[in-house]
């Protein structure tokens, strides 16, 4: 098995000659792809463009006659409002903490799944079970667990009062929300990392061992660098997912005690208050911030996405 690091040094092939055959093939390819492309445009581009359009209006579903074009006013309102920035901060905080925990725990799980010799199927399956649980269910389960009336967390943690109400203030509420989030999605992370681990060549590990590298050295110098693409994909996917966190907050606190995320803020504007204008503006901002995060992570890890798919 070749690794991503042993890149072929073969010179780039010159562009294919435009033979009749290749032209015909290209044209056929375009025709075959076209229906899928049109469908994609319909289901993704249309709602996006419509949100962009609606975000330019002062438009409430309950006062449809008062619909009024306001240009970028909704964006100005959102971006100059402390509520938007407080919720953005909350969201980024949740994203960083959960992804960090998931990366470490997920990596440990991936190692276990990779190395385990006995009862492989059972162990792999049991690690993956939380990922099969619906987020709303996981949210309720952890809400009960943290509840001071019928939960077990307070009695398990020696430094916590038995009647400590986790959902009474911001920090403890966020801990509960993040615990549920981490528990639920760590298996996903470890699954992606497991794929990366499988790509690391045993030959290299053995060579390193022969050269006298310790376990830590093998981890830092051989395994992790060779997994960079897989780690990046895992972090990217999870970070974007975590940034759109909604279910756990909805179930556990409904946004009380300043635990609201950007998705939740958007939900409230559109679904609860029927303010389609400002709600659409927030959706567009959410979309843009997801793009920014994706860009930053790609830059940070300096990894070509194609690497992850072993296209090079």
């Amino acid at each position, binding site marked *: 098995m070749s690794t991503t690091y042993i890149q072929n040094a073969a010179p780039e092939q010159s562009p294919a000659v435009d033979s009749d055959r290749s032209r015909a093939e290209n044209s056929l390819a375009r025709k075959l792809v076209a229906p899928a492309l049109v469908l994609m445009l319909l289901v993704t581009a249309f709602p996006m463009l419509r949100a962009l359009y609606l975000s330019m209006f002062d438009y409430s579903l309950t*006062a449809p006659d008062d619909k009024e074009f306001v240009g970028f006013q909704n964006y100005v309102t*959102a971006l100059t409002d402390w509520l938007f920035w407080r919720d953005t901060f909350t969201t980024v905080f949740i994203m960083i903490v959960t992804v960090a925990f998931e990366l470490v725990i997920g990596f440990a799980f991936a190692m276990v799944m990779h190395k385990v010799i006995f009862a492989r199927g059972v162990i792999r399956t049991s690690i993956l079970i939380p990922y099969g649980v619906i987020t709303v269910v996981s949210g309720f389960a952890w809400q009960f667990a943290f509840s001071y009336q019928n939960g077990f967390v307070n009695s398990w943690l020696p430094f916590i009062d038995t009647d400590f109400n986790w959902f009474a203030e911001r920090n403890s509420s966020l801990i509960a929300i993040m615990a549920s989030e981490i528990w639920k999605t760590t298996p996903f992370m470890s699954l992606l990392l497991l794929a990366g681990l499988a790509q690391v060549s045993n030959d290299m590990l053995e060579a390193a061992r022969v050269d006298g590298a310790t376990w830590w050295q093998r981890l830092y110098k051989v395994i992790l660098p060779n997994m960079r693409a897989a780690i990046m994909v895992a972090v990217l996917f999870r970070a974007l997912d975590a940034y759109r966190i909604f279910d756990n907050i909805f179930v556990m606190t409904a946004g009380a005690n300043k635990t609201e995320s950007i998705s939740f803020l958007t939900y409230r504007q559109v679904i*609860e*208050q029927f303010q389609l204008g400002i709600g659409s503006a927030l959706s567009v901002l959410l979309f843009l911030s997801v793009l920014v995060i994706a860009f930053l992570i790609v830059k940070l890890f300096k990894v070509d996405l194609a690497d992850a798919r072993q296209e090079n």
Partner: protein
Amino acid sequence: MSVLAACGSGSGGKATLNWYINPDGQVTLNKLAKDCSTSKYDIKIQLLPASATDQRTQLARRLAAKDSSTDLMSLDPVFVPEFANAEWLAPFEGDQADKVLDDDVLKGAAETVKWDDKVVAAPQWANTQVLWYRRSLADKAGLDMTKPVTWDQVIKAAGDNGGTVGVQANKYEAYVVWINALIQGAGGNILDPSTVEKGRDAKVTIDSKAGKDAAAVIRELAKSPAAQPDFTTSNEGTSLGQMFPAKGSGEFMTNWTFVYKNYEGLIGKPGGPADKKGFKDLGWVRYPQTVAGEESKPPIGGIDIGVGAYSKHLDYAKAAAVCVTNADAQTQLAVNEGLMPSRQSVYDSQALKKAYPADLLTLFSQSVDQGGPRPKSAFYSQISSAIQSRWHSPTAVGPGTPKKSADFLSAILKGKALL
């Protein structure tokens, strides 16, 4: 298509009307649905979630999508203007309008179903708040309850005599009910009533002398020993247990009409009076005054029945709405479920006189008749949330609160701030 069509028209060509109800009084509502079904249509009950916010959201989503299967709906009065303004409610016209809104309907309830000079819903039952109290506590404080009392008197009487004052001050709708009643009791309004129906262009008038008087009452209670331990998260249920506590002299509590039947059912049980004699210690008077000498404006609640504008059977639905809100239906709801009528004639009926003390019935009907509505605006739910966000926590309310909430509310209505 045939499947869908069959779904809508019911079996044998008989129409099915869907009536979305809130969970209060389900047994009687089911009976009303059956009684009011005719040879032409059946009324089918559909249950909405328990919280008023969720009820509104679910109905609004259906109506925004022009759902033709939403025929009848039970609406909290504060959502009627919003739904009517969006043209989601089919107005009653001619004879039917006269039937659902004749002289018999109490003024406070009647106000809630009018929008743009049209009758957009039918009042089914009316809720109001009165001041519930322990007669022994008032005696001990030497408070004369035969005359109107003020919040100031009530708070001092409770605080000086080991009693408490029960209110609803959690961050939710009933806290706005309290704030609104306090402001109206001082002769003011959250929004100028003559411009309130203009939606976003309504004039915000909460930053006024009345607003400050209201803030002063909340501040006084917050700082008084009469405040209950869970004052900042109190709701309709939390203060019930303080009326007949194991220790202490009980409370003064502003709360809805269900309180009477609640304690009557708890005689000899935990949380209730020890015996019938103890139950006799429960007293009731009109909602307290914010300012001495100025008549109080008791809060109004209840349920109005609206007809969905996109219903396939508008005529049937309107006829059904008239039926489930008539005097007979209201009597059943009052006697079986404790949901008080919106019609004067029902208060005067023998059935009710058997179930409630005469002076309590008079107090209820008077309170509904002379009560003050919350702002009748298509943007009510935003107005309510804006008020909650600046007036909660009640322990932080002060003379500056009305100004702060006025600025925020104006910004919200103009779309210049996020809620």
